[in-house]
């Protein structure tokens, strides 16, 4: 019946609150980790069976993680919103295929990365020769700020400054830096995702960090003048 297929409007925040209450009651009874996992698995199973309210709960639980990942990889709020939406639509399409070989959050994380990478490829970003495509004349002179206190000792890295610097990186460098240094992927995993060699991933990461170093040093040097 068509009416049954009609999706009811669901407030994910309200649903999440009910879930949290349910989960916290269970946690108080027994092993905290085990019972919370059981509650999550029940929500997941319901969502896989087509329960829209359960899908809304999944959205509520995972939206920050997915959105933040998109935002970091893309460095652009509007695109991050679009691709967060695309990731959850793909999740809706594919959720029944999740078999539990990995944690659901890991699976969703990879799905999100694939959505972002597909988008970047559609836009023509060559993920194999990232630096040549995006930064045709990288500057590798000796460290220009020689003599200045190093970043670690001067304590000049704060979150806001670092976020801005990462946001300003060329897309290819940002991608490698986010995947390795923030999301914790290994070079062999990144190489598989980006269809490049492990050596390429390593050298790109080095160049990304070099770019960040220049960006992070600039404000400190201005203050020192």
């Amino acid at each position, binding site marked *: 019946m068509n009416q049954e297929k009609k999706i009811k409007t669901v407030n994910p925040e309200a649903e999440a609150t009910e879930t949290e209450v349910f989960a916290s009651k269970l946690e108080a009874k027994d092993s905290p980790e085990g019972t919370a996992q059981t509650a999550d698995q029940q929500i997941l199973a319901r969502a896989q069976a087509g329960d829209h309210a359960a899908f809304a709960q999944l959205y509520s639980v995972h939206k920050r993680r997915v959105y933040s990942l998109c935002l970091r990889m893309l460095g652009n709020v509007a695109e991050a919103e679009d691709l967060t939406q695309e990731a959850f639509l793909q999740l809706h399409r594919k959720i029944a295929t999740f078999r539990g070989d990995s944690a659901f959050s890991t699976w969703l994380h990879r799905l999100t990365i694939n959505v972002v990478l597909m988008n970047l490829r559609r836009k023509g970003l060559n993920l194999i020769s990232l630096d040549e495509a995006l930064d045709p004349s990288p500057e590798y002179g000796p460290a220009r700020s020689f003599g200045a206190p190093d970043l670690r000792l001067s304590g000049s890295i*704060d979150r806001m400054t*670092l976020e801005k610097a990462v946001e300003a990186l060329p897309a290819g460098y940002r991608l490698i830096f986010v995947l390795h240094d923030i999301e914790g992927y290994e070079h062999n995993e990144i190489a598989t995702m980006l269809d490049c060699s492990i050596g390429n991933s390593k050298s790109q990461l080095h160049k990304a960090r070099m770019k960040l170093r220049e960006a992070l040093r600039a404000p400190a040097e201005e203050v020192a003048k």
Partner: protein
Amino acid sequence: MKYRDPVNDFPDDECAEFQASMPARIGAGEDLQNHPHMLTCERCRALVRDLEAIAEAARQLMPVEEEPPDELWTQIQMAIERGDA
């Protein structure tokens, strides 16, 4: 043997050449810490320390999660209703 000051005795072009070769060396899996230039050049060691500090800062500072706008869920629901999902 003449003493070599680890800070002042390395000409710019020697460090520039070494630093320019870093990406390829790292890509090839070379351990830079054991390179003869690194063992004696404080300038390039400081550079590598900076890069490590940036990686460490990213691990510690960046995993803060941001909240997407509230309207996003409404848009997702509408897309599902339209059959986009």
